């Protein structure tokens, strides 16, 4: 199946696992979609999950997840959020990415959720929040612009 076919099937079935499995970098870090049917918080925005993974460690002493992996997880979450909510069949192209680290990302499960503040014809502005135990204590926040093609 082509990427477009995988994406179309994912949108029709509301199951994005096969789409994410087709992206090598998402596989490398272990990104997964949160099963929306298991959500109990009443919100419906797509949520992403990065299971605890020893290969993602950047500080072996704490130990903590590599800051670049946290950034990659958040950036990938933002592109997937756009793929899930837009009509286009093309992968959004990242223009810039600004990331603030708020707390050390411990060697444990991490979550991310995105908010599209503005989606124009050509550019989308997306805010991304990442957290571990408590959504109100984020480990990082980020803002990204994507070129929509």
């Amino acid at each position, binding site marked *: 199946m082509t990427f477009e076919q995988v994406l179309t099937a994912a949108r029709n079935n509301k199951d994005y696992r096969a789409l994410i499995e087709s992206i090598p970098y998402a596989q490398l870090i272990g990104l997964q979609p949160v099963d929306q049917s298991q959500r109990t918080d009443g919100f419906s925005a797509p949520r992403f999950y990065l299971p605890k993974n020893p290969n993602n460690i950047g500080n072996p002493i704490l130990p903590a997840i590599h*800051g670049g992996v946290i*950034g990659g997880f958040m950036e990938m979450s933002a592109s997937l959020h756009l793929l899930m909510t837009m009509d286009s069949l093309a992968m959004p192209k990242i223009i*810039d990415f600004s*990331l603030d680290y708020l707390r050390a990302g411990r060697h444990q499960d991490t979550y991310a959720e995105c908010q599209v503040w503005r989606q124009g014809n050509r550019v989308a502005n997306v805010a991304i929040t990442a957290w571990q135990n408590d959504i109100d204590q984020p480990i990082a926040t980020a803002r990204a612009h994507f070129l929509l093609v």
Partner: protein
Amino acid sequence: MSNMQEKHIANTEKAARFLSVLPHCKLLGMTIEFVDDQILVMRLPYSPIIVGNPLTGTVHGGSLTTLMDTACGTGVFTFLPGHELCPTLDLRVDYMKAATPGLDLFAVAKVTRISSSVVFTRCDVIQGKTYAEAVANAESEGSTGDLVATCAAAFMRIGQAMGTAKSGDTK
């Protein structure tokens, strides 16, 4: 050998030791390419495992973020005296163009200012089969190898205490 050359060799060894203990960087095959007393160059070999767009084979921005964060952070560790670990405060990346599939990526990192509590850094990512080729590509406009991304990152100084210091953790 001059004092300067000895200093560059010591810096290269310090940077390589720092990089060698980072599991995720080992996974990506990142290596120290060049260090003097001004810049640090880190290499990220092209690999199918870091592809972000399966249609084009271009690497994902996340692997570039990892490369730039590590290059700037290793630069901070290398160019500060002693063994000071500084967590990243923030990172701003501009993606100038999609990296060409098959070419290795080189982050050229520079420490621009060391204050008592913050270290400021900048980094450019260029690409080529070798570092020399990447530099040549970056200088010849319009070729396949000009600037891929730039980054500005700030790091917090938390003192010499290694290991137990927490990176902005309030818990």
